[in-house]
């Protein structure tokens, strides 16, 4: 028995389904041209090269391992320290970057 209420959001011309805490239900519908709009909704403007590096790293980890990394794992593997990650995503790097990267809630945020 799961309680996965979902909601929808319109990004450009595409309607996407989100979990009640804002993560993509189907990560395969995500495309890179959604990033600017997804980031803006999280209060991130403009999207810098640093943001892109983290977002692409999150996607890669998700594809390879089936889950996005926690902020600690990200700090050890992404090339950015946890401090730098917080400068890029002040409201929580793992959570916000996962939302913008269109992947499920990272496992560290059980």
């Amino acid at each position, binding site marked *: 028995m799961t*309680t996965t209420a979902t909601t929808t959001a319109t990004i450009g011309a595409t309607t996407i389904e989100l979990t009640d805490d*804002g993560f993509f239900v189907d990560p395969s519908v995500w495309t890179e041209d959604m990033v600017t709009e997804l980031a803006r*909704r999280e209060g991130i403007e403009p999207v810098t090269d640093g943001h892109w590096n983290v977002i692409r790293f999150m996607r890669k980890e998700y594809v390879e391992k089936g889950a996005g990394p926690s902020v*600690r794992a990200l700090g050890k593997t992404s090339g950015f320290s946890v401090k730098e*990650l*917080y400068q890029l995503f*002040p409201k929580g790097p793992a959570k916000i970057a996962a939302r913008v990267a269109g992947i499920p809630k990272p496992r560290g945020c059980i």
Partner: protein
Amino acid sequence: MILGGGTGGTLTANRLRKLYKPGEAEIVVVDQDDNHVYQPGLLFVPFGLTDADDIVRPRGRQLHAGISYHQSSIDHVDIDDDRVHLDDGTTLPYDVLVIATGATLVPDETEGLTGAGWMERVFTFYTAFIDLPIKCPVAPLEFCFLADWYFTERGIRDRVELVFVTPLDGAFTKPVASERLVGMLAEKGIELVTDFNTGEVDGAGGRLISYDGREVPFDLAVIVPLHGGAAYVGRSPGLGDELNFVPTDQRTLQSRAAANVFVIGDAADVPTSKAGSVTHFEGDTLVANIAHHLAGEALEAGFDGHANCFIETGFHKALLIDFNYETEPLTGHFPGRVGLPLLKESRLNHLGKLMFQWIYWNALLPGRDLPGLGSTMPAAGKTAAESTSSTPVPEGA
């Protein structure tokens, strides 16, 4: 070969010894010391409710006859050669390896935590003996509730400000329990600070500083440091992840590193609380799958993520939660329609928690079945969740 003589290693060894006659399998347990700590008891020590000596027993004595106990720290595991290399120079070959070496604290990973004030005004309750993943999300809550009770009993509660600071977005990881626990913190006058990812501890200045620049002042801080897996995991090529936990199939408990390596308890990277109850419930699946592996049979996807935790709330009461991978902690009764109340303070739950220490040493570790307590989560007696998500929906969604 079982690495670790704590909850998971001990109950696995004892159950395997029952399953296989001495001539059929040789069972060896390795640990670096001879102190088996009943970890739930650690919370009671600072409040004078138990002595540190009362919660520690020799590891080897918890193992059934016919199990070898080898005391040494571990250098590394060679998963390609099926050998464990110990720091005392011994090399032990294995057919099946069980990793049960738990989680360790890594306070050095948080800036300033072990600096000025460490063990003077900055403590951890795992040392008699802040972040993600939290070993057991309810332990720091219990500490707050017990502190509230302790200061009330001493008649000075009105002069003590208690603040619970958590990296989570609520008092717990799942919405129904979180809402209940947030209400209880408020009733007891304990302030809750959420989404606080501690980046630095300023012991001299008495401040916790989050990565996003917020500050919480303190006179005394009790901190759950970051956790990692055992250091030897990091020295064993191909075995662990970046935090030294072992990537593990969450249903079969087989490691992803090698078919003959299994993982139980805190050492695994499975998405559960790092709690003794989880380790206990994993035992059934783990032992069955070791037998399947040795017999060349397919493994069972048997473990459902079941966790069951008593939460001490002070004043001789406790709360009980019961959940698994799919079902969050709900209200109702455990294990059936008649039983211990769930998500509700009661004296019965407190007695349950106290009684559990006896059960731990005398039934759980020896590998006896506990009547009425199966490894899969019981659904009878639970009240379905009303949708009470406390997580805000993002703007525009």
